[in-house]
């Protein structure tokens, strides 16, 4: 297909060539530049279609590679020949090539003017074949759409469409013209396009209310997208064919390499290179300059230059003027040796929106860069204020030597930057550690203060609440001691008997006798213990109450009992809340409380406390009213805790010390086995201290339940949490025995 076309075309060319000798186009001019036997086409830079395609691909690849890996001059083989020598050899070739391309362009124009009329069909052919090649990829459109939506969301959609149409026409026009126009003409054409668009913005009704700021942004936007696409096309706008930009690039890079020995002292700029901040700024400026080549649009390049110059300005110190800026910038350029410097500068000068380039900050800095480049180009001994001989000596020095210092400077820069970065990071980490430490201390103090506050509050609360409770309880107890003792004893004694019955089933009887006598003997003292309990309750809740002891001015044994009873009572208020909802009435109904009720002075709280302990038993009993009699064993177990308070009295002699600390449960344990004390100790600690009493015991209860299913069933029936809480402790010893 390609070849077929080519043949056809070449054939036509041949015919015209033979028909019109007056054209004076040599046949060799028409041949492919590559030397293959096909005819070339000026539209394809003098190649035949195939060679052109290959050439194009090669160029693109090179372009990509160079832009990807950056410093082109560094990649190049280090040519140690002095500039003049290299020029003589290379520039000849370059000039030849230039001349060739110029003539080709002329020939191209000529041909068109001549062929236009004669070969209408051929002419129609050309754009058709070109179109697929120059078709603008949809990404450009998509990118524009996306960015427009983000940046100019308040502008009407027509503007979006029109700007896209404009960019499309612009790009197509430039591509079309790039083959037939010189760069300057093309540049003018591009500028005209910009002005055209500006005019459109001035006249279009869509922009009636938009600010000039937005308009500028829009033209920047248009310029950016059009030029970004064109920039990547090889030889169209960036170092276009027909200019010697590339050669100048190379020359400039060599020149800079040669001048690598030029230091800040030659340029008389005040830079302190030992200062780390200076190094950092210099490095930033250099990296911005290097990045100029990577930016696709002229606006982006200009922005990079601006940033670089700002760093340089910062490098100079606070009140920096142009007198400081320019030398410092020259120095920076010398150290950076930016790739394709001349091409980039030319590209911006030619195709950047001229109005922006002429005025404004970016324009100023760009002008400075141009000045720096031109200074470097024309640098002589005088411009450095140094001896001509010395200068020549330096210049005659092989670039590699100079290059080493230059490279060292750069690498030093890099090392300094790296070190700086690491230092900064270390500082940041240290800072983090510090803040962390401060936070921990803060947290600790917070916790402490919080603890204190809580303690304080608790004390406050304790200080407030006891006052109410004290007076109420004390008098009734004193009175109730005598009144209520009798019913209490009656209630307790029947309960005790089942306990005695139970043990024979499971617990070794040896211990039971011990308990029984104690309880029996306790009956007399028991009444008092109950009284003691009530007083102790008050004491314990109040914790600070000291008047209570005088009111129960009994012997030390009383106090011992008190501890036990207190613990009995403490769980009751804790478990009281859920209990209330369920069966306060039920609690109240039992006979025991009926009897207690008789006591006139007792407060509700007191009742609750007392009840809760018993209530567990009562509720269970009520839930399964008939069962308790049959399987006394569970009930008995449950009721054991109730007896505990009394037991302390009995066990005073052997377990005095232990009992002081331990609960009712501990007492049960003493009954059952000493081995199981370990479990019980846990109970004790949990029970009195915290509300966790239930939750802690519940899992424990569930565990032992599995082996003992009878009791579990009973518990399930009861379902009350308080019951559960009370149950486990007696159960455990049993299980331990079983196991």
């Amino acid at each position, binding site marked *: 297909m390609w070849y077929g076309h080519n043949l056809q075309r070449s054939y036509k060319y041949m015919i015209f060539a033979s028909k019109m000798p007056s054209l004076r186009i040599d046949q060799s001019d028409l041949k492919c530049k590559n030397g293959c036997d096909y005819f070339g086409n000026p539209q394809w830079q003098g190649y035949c279609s195939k060679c052109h395609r290959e050439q194009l691909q090669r160029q693109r690849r090179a372009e990509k590679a160079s832009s990807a890996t950056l410093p082109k001059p560094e990649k190049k083989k280090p040519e140690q020949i002095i500039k003049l020598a290299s020029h003589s050899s290379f520039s000849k070739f370059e000039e030849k090539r230039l001349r060739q391309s110029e003539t080709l362009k002329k020939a191209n124009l000529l041909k068109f003017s001549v062929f236009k009329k004669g070969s209408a069909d051929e002419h129609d052919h050309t754009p058709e074949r070109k179109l697929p090649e120059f078709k603008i990829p949809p990404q450009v459109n998509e990118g524009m759409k996306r960015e427009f939506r983000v940046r100019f969301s308040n502008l009407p959609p027509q503007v979006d469409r029109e700007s896209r149409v404009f960019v499309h026409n612009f790009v197509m026009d430039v591509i079309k013209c790039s083959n037939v126009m010189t760069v300057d003409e093309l540049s003018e054409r591009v500028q005209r396009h910009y002005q055209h668009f500006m005019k459109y913005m001035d006249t279009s009704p869509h922009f009636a209310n938009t600010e000039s700021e937005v308009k500028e942004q829009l033209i920047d936007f248009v310029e950016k997208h059009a030029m970004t696409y064109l920039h990547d096309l090889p030889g169209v706008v960036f170092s276009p064919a027909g200019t010697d930009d590339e050669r100048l690039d190379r020359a400039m890079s060599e020149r800079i390499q040669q001048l690598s020995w030029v230091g800040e002292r030659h340029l008389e700029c005040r830079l302190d290179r030992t200062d780390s901040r200076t190094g950092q700024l210099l490095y930033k400026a250099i990296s911005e300059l290097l990045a100029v080549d990577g930016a696709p649009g002229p606006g982006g390049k200009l922005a990079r230059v601006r940033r670089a110059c700002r760093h340089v300005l910062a490098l*100079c110190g606070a*009140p920096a003027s142009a007198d400081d800026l320019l030398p410092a910038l020259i120095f920076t350029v010398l150290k950076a040796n930016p790739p394709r410097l001349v091409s980039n500068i030319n590209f911006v000068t030619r195709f950047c929106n001229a109005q922006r380039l002429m005025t404004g900050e970016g324009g100023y800095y760009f002008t400075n860069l141009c000045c720096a480049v*031109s200074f470097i180009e024309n640098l002589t001994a005088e411009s450095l204020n140094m001896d001509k001989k010395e200068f020549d000596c330096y210049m005659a020095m092989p670039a590699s030597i100079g290059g080493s210092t230059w490279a060292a400077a750069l690498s030093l820069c890099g090392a300094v930057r790296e070190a700086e970065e690491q230092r900064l990071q270390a500082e940041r980490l240290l800072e983090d550690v510090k803040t962390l430490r401060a936070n921990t201390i803060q947290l600790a103090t917070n916790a402490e203060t919080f603890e204190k506050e809580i303690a304080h509050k608790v004390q406050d609360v304790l200080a407030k609440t006891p006052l109410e409770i004290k007076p109420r309880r004390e008098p009734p107890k004193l009175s109730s001691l005598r009144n209520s003792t009798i019913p209490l004893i009656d209630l307790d004694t029947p309960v005790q008997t089942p306990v005695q019955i139970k043990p024979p089933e499971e617990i070794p009887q040896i211990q039971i006798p011990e308990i029984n006598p104690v309880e029996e003997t306790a009956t007399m003292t028991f009444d008092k213990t109950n009284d003691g309990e009530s007083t102790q309750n008050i004491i314990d809740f109040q914790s600070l109450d000291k008047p209570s002891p005088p009111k129960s001015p009994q012997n030390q044994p009383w106090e011992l009992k008190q501890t036990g009873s207190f613990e009995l009572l403490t769980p009751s208020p804790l478990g009281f809340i859920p209990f209330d909802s369920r069966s306060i009435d039920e609690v109240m109904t039992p006979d025991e409380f009926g009897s207690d009720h008789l006591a006139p002075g007792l407060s509700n709280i007191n009742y609750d406390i007392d009840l809760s302990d018993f209530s567990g038993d009562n509720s269970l009993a009520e839930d399964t009213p008939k069962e308790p009699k049959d399987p006394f064993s569970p009930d008995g177990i449950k009721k054991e805790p109730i007896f505990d308070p009394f037991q302390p009295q009995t066990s005073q002699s052997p377990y005095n010390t232990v009992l002081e600390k331990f609960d009712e449960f501990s007492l049960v344990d003493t009954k059952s086995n000493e081995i199981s004390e370990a479990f019980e100790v846990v109970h004790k600690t949990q029970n009195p201290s915290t509300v966790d009493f239930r939750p802690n015991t519940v899992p424990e209860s569930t565990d032992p339940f599995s082996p003992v299913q009878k009791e579990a069933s009973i518990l399930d029936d009861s379902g009350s949490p308080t019951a559960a809480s009370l149950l486990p402790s007696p159960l455990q010893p049993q299980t331990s025995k079983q196991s």
Partner: protein
Amino acid sequence: MSRCDFKIVLLGSEHVGKTSLVIRFVNCRFNSGTPYQNTIGAAFCAKQMQSHDREFNVGIWDTAGSERYEAMTRMYYRGAHAAIICYDPASLASWTRLRHWLQELRTVEEDCKVYLCGTKKDLLDTGTVQREVPEDIIATYSQGLHGHFLTSSKTGENVDELFQKIVDDCVKDLKVMKIVEEARVQLQKEDNEKNKNYCYC
């Protein structure tokens, strides 16, 4: 402020006080305007000014006065609307260099308005330095120019007047505006012509 309406270039040899002039002008009169420039330096300053009831952005370009960069100054005043050539009345050397720029401007940038500015007036007034540049010479030179000012960056004398006059002149000079308009019209015409020429390619 990426674009400026007017571009004013400061020319003059080293140490005549170009930078001080700019700093004085930019920092003192409108403290509210363009604070971002001040911290960086005075190489380029942009400022909003009022003239004929309109706001204009003025970009002031400082140039390096050192003789070694003299060849490059041309780049700076390309397309400038106005140029201020500074000299130190107490230094004849600064005056002789001034003539070089005058010539250049006249030939290269014909449309650029040129203002002469003698600096360090306060030193002259107090008598700490002696005037070296004769006033009559200055007078003859400034005849063909747009104005001559004797300023003091220290006291701020005449500084604002100088810049205000420049802006006023620029605005008044409808020619500047016209040129832009004409250029556009012309370009459009050219565009059409060119379109005709190239529509076949």
